[in-house]
């Protein structure tokens, strides 16, 4: 299978493995803060930043536009947090609003920029979003750095995260400043999202942040194991998806990684030790069987007396 060892496949394999693990880990925090869809919201909120960066600079310069995207996404995250904390608007409503209003602003700016002179401003709304298959050696290093940052943030303050996610008020009581924890969480999440979407695109990034953590939830009740498992599932999906895409003719890499993680989710949903449906059905049947047996013993004893 020489195809497998082609340099591109190796780069994509390594990058998606590490990105999958990092997204899996931060995905768990997002899962418990009910912000799994944050990545989709922020990737839309990034558009105004991209258009403004392009308008200021005059032509397409990828790093600058990604910086614009990051600033715009952070502004989006700030608004979501502010709206949610100081009004009774719920999390998902705040995300839906920021997503669509920022994107609308982006389209407005894009149409204005389109009309002004200056060349090649076409395709701005899709320009910064990458594709998994087009990752190169430098991407492996960026993903490595990202993975290390996420691992550090999660494991250094592991107990604090667990407490903060489970019971923020009690955590505040212990002197753990919710504001600071939230700031670190939001920053790391936005970092992972922005680096992720420019490397693998919006949909794959959303999938990597959501599906591994949800699947892990089916195997364990312990927060620690959920993070470890989610990282393994995320990385695994990256590897399997990449292999599949390299094997087939014209099979797109990003969507195949999503398909791989969805397959893992289906397996977890059915057979997950903790809450898997089949497992629960088996438990139910076993209990009914035990019940039947105890009835027969009960009847036998009565007859004997």
């Amino acid at each position: 299978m020489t195809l497998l060892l082609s340099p591109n496949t190796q780069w994509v394999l390594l990058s998606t493995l590490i990105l999958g693990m990092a997204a899996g880990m931060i995905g768990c925090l997002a899962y418990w803060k009910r912000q799994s869809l944050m990545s989709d919201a922020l990737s839309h909120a990034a558009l105004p930043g991209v258009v403004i960066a392009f308008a200021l600079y005059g032509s397409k310069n990828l790093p600058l536009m990604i910086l614009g995207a990051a600033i715009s996404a952070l502004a989006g995250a700030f608004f979501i947090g502010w709206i949610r904390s100081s009004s009774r608007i719920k999390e998902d409503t705040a995300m839906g609003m920021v997503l669509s209003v920022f994107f609308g602003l982006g389209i407005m700016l894009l149409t204005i920029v389109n009309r002004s002179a200056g060349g090649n401003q076409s395709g701005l709304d899709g320009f910064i979003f990458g594709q998994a298959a087009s990752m190169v050696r430098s991407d492996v290093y960026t993903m490595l750095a990202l993975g290390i940052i996420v691992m550090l943030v999660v494991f250094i303050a592991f107990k604090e995260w667990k407490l903060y996610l489970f019971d923020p008020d009690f955590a505040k009581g212990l002197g753990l400043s919710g504001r600071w924890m939230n700031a670190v969480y939001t920053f790391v999440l936005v970092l992972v999202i922005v680096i992720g979407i420019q490397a693998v695109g919006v949909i794959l990034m959303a999938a990597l942040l959501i599906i591994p953590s949800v699947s892990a939830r089916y195997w364990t009740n312990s927060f620690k194991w959920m993070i470890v498992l989610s990282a393994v599932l995320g990385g695994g999906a990256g590897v399997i998806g990449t292999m599949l895409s390299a094997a087939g003719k014209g099979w797109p890499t990003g969507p195949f990684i999503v398909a791989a993680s969805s397959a893992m989710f289906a397996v977890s949903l059915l057979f997950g030790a903790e809450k898997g449906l089949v497992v629960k059905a088996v438990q139910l049947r076993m209990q009914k069987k035990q019940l039947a047996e105890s009835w027969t013993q009960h009847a036998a004893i009565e007859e004997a007396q």
Partner: protein
Amino acid sequence: MAILRVDGLNAAYRKNRVLNDVTFSVEPGTLTGIVGPNGAGKSTLLKVMLDLHPKLSGDVSFFGSPHGKVKTRIGYVPQRGSVDWDFPTNALDVVMMGLYGQIGWFKWPKRSDKENALASLDQMGMADYADRQISQLSGGQQQRVFLARALVQNADLYFMDEPLAGVDAATEKAIMMTLKQLKEMGKTVMVVHHDLQTVEDYFDHVLLLNRTVVAHGPTDNIFTKDNVYRAYGGALRFMKEA
């Protein structure tokens, strides 16, 4: 003739078996406290009887027929906390919701329904908070509104899941007064209760439950020290002499 009959009821919750072989029957016009340690299956018993949770085996009959047929004659006050308190509705609206089952499809609440709702709110001493948004009410007041919502159904048989949990003293007295009035009107009430000290003053019958019926009957003769010990498995240090 028993108003409620439970025979050989078994149910499981996730992995562990919570109710095994629960059998008891309840006479009309009684005020029964369902008492037992944590995890004894008190709430699950209520949910299973009302078809809100699947049962493994056994059957339950209300007024001699299954739950589905007599829904309107049964009132249910679930445990507080499962509701989004920011929902745009005021106290009167919440109480009106108790009638939705009876008002039926397509029809809108009539003036008489509103008056009934106001009356039961008044019974719980909450009449002048009728148009107050529910998040602006205290825990005790919210509980009174939920109780009023059950009363307005004018059911014959009431199930209440820890109505006195986390309420202030005034609310506790008001709720118990209402339960006593219901009893005098010949209604039957079953209440999941956790405070052993008040069992004797509040309830005329007691169902001691620890995954199975430990004891059931009038409070005076079954609410004895050894029954409670058997139900709580010796977890109690001291207890008022029977």
